[in-house]
């Protein structure tokens, strides 16, 4: 039977190789958590297999490609670099993204882009419920459908969805994307070789602030 390596061993070898090479390839990942995390180097890393949670999290400047599916929280808290996920992803992809780009060539489960502060998340497929929940900044583009509660509690940033939005969350509003915005979406999608009908995109953004406290005060004055 082939030896099964732990995440610690895989990451340790990866770090050693990154210290000497610019491009690294890793294979045989089978649900390992936290592979390719906190990569400091500006390097290209290709990983094949099925990744567990937190794949590519805390990345700072590397270009990481996963050929296979990833479980929850892929690209969590990245501050730079690129993460290209060629397969479906679990919950919370690009959660708390602070910079860089996460591109999913497949569908994403719930909470994609939750708490994003900056950067770009592109989902070339459908996104689950609570897309962009509590988002503070950055851009999310979904070429397929989005589930319920899109943009719940969002305070900043924008979400563009090409097909149906299953339902808006509290604190979010929807409108048609402007011509300029569609052009910008086109440029971003082109960069990753993704085709979509730009005319269909709708934009979800923070609703006008409706602070209960403010309303109470105003009503009191009246």
């Amino acid at each position, binding site marked *: 039977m082939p030896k099964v390596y732990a*995440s*610690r061993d895989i*990451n340790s070898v990866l770090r050693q190789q990154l210290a000497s090479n610019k491009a690294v390839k890793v294979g045989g990942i089978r649900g390992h*958590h*936290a592979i390719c*995390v*906190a990569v*400091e180097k500006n390097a290209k890393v290709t990983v094949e297999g099925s990744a*567990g*949670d*937190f794949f590519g*999290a*805390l990345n*700072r400047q590397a270009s990481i490609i996963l050929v296979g599916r990833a479980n*929850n*929280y892929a690209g*969590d*808290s990245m*501050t730079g670099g690129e993460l290209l996920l060629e397969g479906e992803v679990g919950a919370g992809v690009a959660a*708390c993204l*602070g910079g860089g780009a996460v591109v999913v060539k497949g569908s994403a489960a719930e909470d994609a882009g939750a*708490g994003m502060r900056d950067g770009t998340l592109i989902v070339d497929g459908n996104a689950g419920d609570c897309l962009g929940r*509590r988002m503070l900044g950055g851009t999310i583009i979904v070429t397929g459908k989005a589930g319920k509660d899109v943009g719940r*509690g969002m305070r900043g940033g924008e979400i563009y969805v090409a097909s149906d939005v299953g339902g808006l969350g*509290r*604190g979010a509003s929807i409108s048609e994307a402007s011509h300029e915005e569609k052009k910008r979406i086109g440029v971003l999608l082109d960069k990753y070789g993704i085709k979509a009908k730009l005319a269909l995109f709708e934009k979800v953004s923070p609703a006008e602030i*409706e*602070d*209960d*406290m403010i309303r109470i005060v105003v009503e009191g004055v009246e």
Partner: protein
Amino acid sequence: MKGILGSIIVRQLPPEQMTGERPGLSSVKLGGDDISDPISFSSPIYLGKLPGTPSMHSQKELANHASSTNSMYVPTSNSPMEGCFALWTPTREGLDADMLRNCRGVEIWTTDIMYEGELPVVYPHVETSASLSAHIDLLREATEYKVPIVVRISGGNIYQQVHGAVEAGADGVVVSVHDTLLTSQPNGIMGIFPPASKAMHDSGGRKNGKLLMVEGEFLSGEDIFKALAMGADLVGVTTPALNALEEGKLTDFMTSMEKECLYIMGLSGHLSQETLSADDLLAGDYDTGTITGLKMAGYEKELPIWLH
């Protein structure tokens, strides 16, 4: 000064059982053998996370004190201060890979409370022990197995949460009165110890060197003694430390706490905190006996007395 555990009584040993040796607080190690930079606390008392949002100036002072006394301060948000832990919060606010690489330890928060309008909405961050285990794996990798990782539990069933955190691989579990209870009544505070301590035992944490860190408004060395005897490995002092800092007496306050704790240890016949146990304590009233499971003062029996 009557402490928050005032209804618990410390048992004094008869003079013939005393050894005549001088007691001392022994150091406490946080982090297992797989951690390259475990923390060695010079005493079991540290500065816990304060409730609310204290000023950054106060927090820096507390962090400096912790750093100079080989102790620890748990900040309320991520900021580059010496002697502090990095916080893995649901929003990851203020945190990046650099901070993780250079911190003294990492503390995971399991839920986040945000306000939508006036009402609090609790967002789950880590829902299961398996999910918590993945978070710990990530932080081990991001810190390259250098520093300890602790989990701050929040409300709910204390036994289950402490058990789950140990099972998930945390080096320590923080149970704070401020994060787990919507009360600061002494009865509630006493109620933290039995389930947390039992969970540490049942999960194997006690045997494997995992630490139970209890934080609250401990006012005196007597409170510290009682918390240690009830199963805490480290005791985090919160608001009273801030009050002492504001009066310019933090060092005196912490020193007097240690001295008082040592004095009581001496009278109860212990040379270090490692030998303390619930047998050193008695419940001063029925509520205390019911909540803590300690033997009742005057009866030397646990409640219900008629069963013994």
